């Protein structure tokens, strides 16, 4: 298959973005009634729902850890999410791996020791996908966790960095991912500055890695601000609602 030209003469990408430019990102917290915390995220054409349940009773019971909570995570793509064919139901090998590394991101930041012998469930449903869904899922789940009130040391964000030809880029979309020279999803804890998720394939020099991490951290400031705003908006609305109720009385 012919490789499309991903970076145009004017230095812009197929969707008009500059190399280090993110797709439009919006997040809304508290979108599901039943969940203890939830978030809906749109990032470019990606549409993601994340929900948190817990801390709750461990199932099956023998998995319980008397010293801390255990975290379970399910990342799943809806069968209708992609522009291509109908996806198969149930978790595939890719989804199982993503669920594992996502779970590990949140085990790092949740204060698990405060909830011994319980479990915390994180559900990430990719409703529409256009590249970078694991990063979108982590960024959304982070807001859902904050929305649930479960204490965390930091609020992680994630974004996929990559390389197209010799150009280093951020927030790789699906068509770019298909033909890119390197793909590197990264999750970080913004305040602590730790790398919580790092995956990469393709080809990169060490210098390119270092430059990509700098780009990720720069973008992280924007992503973190949008995550915080989502939480702020949620409680702000609630506060206003309370005031209105008081006045009504």
């Amino acid at each position, binding site marked *: 298959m012919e490789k499309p030209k991903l970076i145009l003469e004017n230095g812009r990408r197929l969707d008009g973005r500059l190399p280090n430019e993110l797709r439009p990102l919006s997040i809304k917290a508290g979108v599901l009634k039943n969940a203890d915390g939830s978030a809906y995220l749109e990032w470019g054409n990606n549409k993601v729902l994340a929900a948190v349940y817990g801390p709750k009773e461990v199932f099956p019971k023998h998995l319980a850890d008397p010293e801390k909570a255990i975290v379970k995570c399910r990342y799943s793509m809806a069968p209708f999410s992609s522009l291509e064919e109908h996806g198969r139901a149930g978790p595939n090998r890719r989804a199982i791996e993503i669920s594992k590394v996502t779970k590990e991101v949140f*085990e790092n930041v949740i204060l698990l020791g405060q909830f011994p012998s319980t479990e915390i469930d994180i559900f990430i449903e990719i409703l529409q996908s256009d590249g970078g869904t694991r990063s979108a899922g982590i960024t959304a789940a982070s807001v859902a966790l904050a929305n649930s009130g479960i204490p965390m040391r930091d609020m992680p964000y994630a974004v996929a960095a990559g390389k197209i030809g010799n150009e280093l880029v951020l927030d790789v979309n699906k068509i770019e991912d298909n033909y890119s020279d390197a793909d590197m999803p990264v999750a970080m804890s913004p305040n602590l500055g730790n790398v919580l998720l790092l995956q990469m394939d393709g080809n990169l020099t*060490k210098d390119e890695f270092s430059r990509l991490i700098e780009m990720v951290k720069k973008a992280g400031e924007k992503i973190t601000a949008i995550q915080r705003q989502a939480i702020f908006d949620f409680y702000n609305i609630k506060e206003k609602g309370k005031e209105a109720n008081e006045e009504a009385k």
Partner: protein
Amino acid sequence: MQIKAVSREYLEELFNKGERVDGRGFMDYRGIGITPGVIPHAEGSADVTIGNTRVLVGVKMDIGEPMPDKPNEGTLTTSAELLPLANADYEEGPPSPEAIEFARVVDRGIRAAEVIDTEALFIEKDKVWNVYVDIYVLNYDGNLFDAGTLSSVTALLTSRVPKLEGGEIIREGSLPRLKTKGIVTSCTFAKIGNSIVLDPNGNEESFMNARLTVANDKEYIRAMQKGLSGSFTEKEIERLIDASFEKSNLLRSSIESAIKKYKSD
């Protein structure tokens, strides 16, 4: 020699003195053994040991369909089995998330470094060779990722492609070698407390809070995977990338000399 389980306190006490339980330096591998061609029925195979860790890889090839997005190329499928005979903690059943992650990280390194020339596996329209790399863990003592990559790459580099004669697959006799383009190796590091060591053994892995695998060839990083709930700083990762490039010379020459010896036997 079987190393008895030791406590985290003892490990960390040793690390603080710059020592490891088995006497190695922080950036040393255990002894590496590579034996290609141990399963003659397979198209390619390799038995690899790193210390007491032992991994067998068999490569098989069958005729099948190409991937829809790459109609002119053969395919690669990598799977890993953590066999119950390899460790008291391994159980029967469908592959665990750990086994799936292991297979996928090895797969990404091989794919990204273009170890196999997949275009050479094209037969005719809608008909290509499907290459199956099956990683069998025979004995677990840490660092499966590097052992898995070493044995998969060695098995592929010594594989032969079956012949097609009148629609029948011939797997014996004089067969052409699988066309390969590169060699990839990986280095896996474990963070235990604040210390980082290369090639963790099973004992060290039971106490590690974060793991980083860097797969590279001579020129490029080809794949990376951070695992577990701990974290790395970017400075630490940069240092480990350097270490991986340095150590990969040893790994590559281990593969090359094993293959040279195998071919001359």
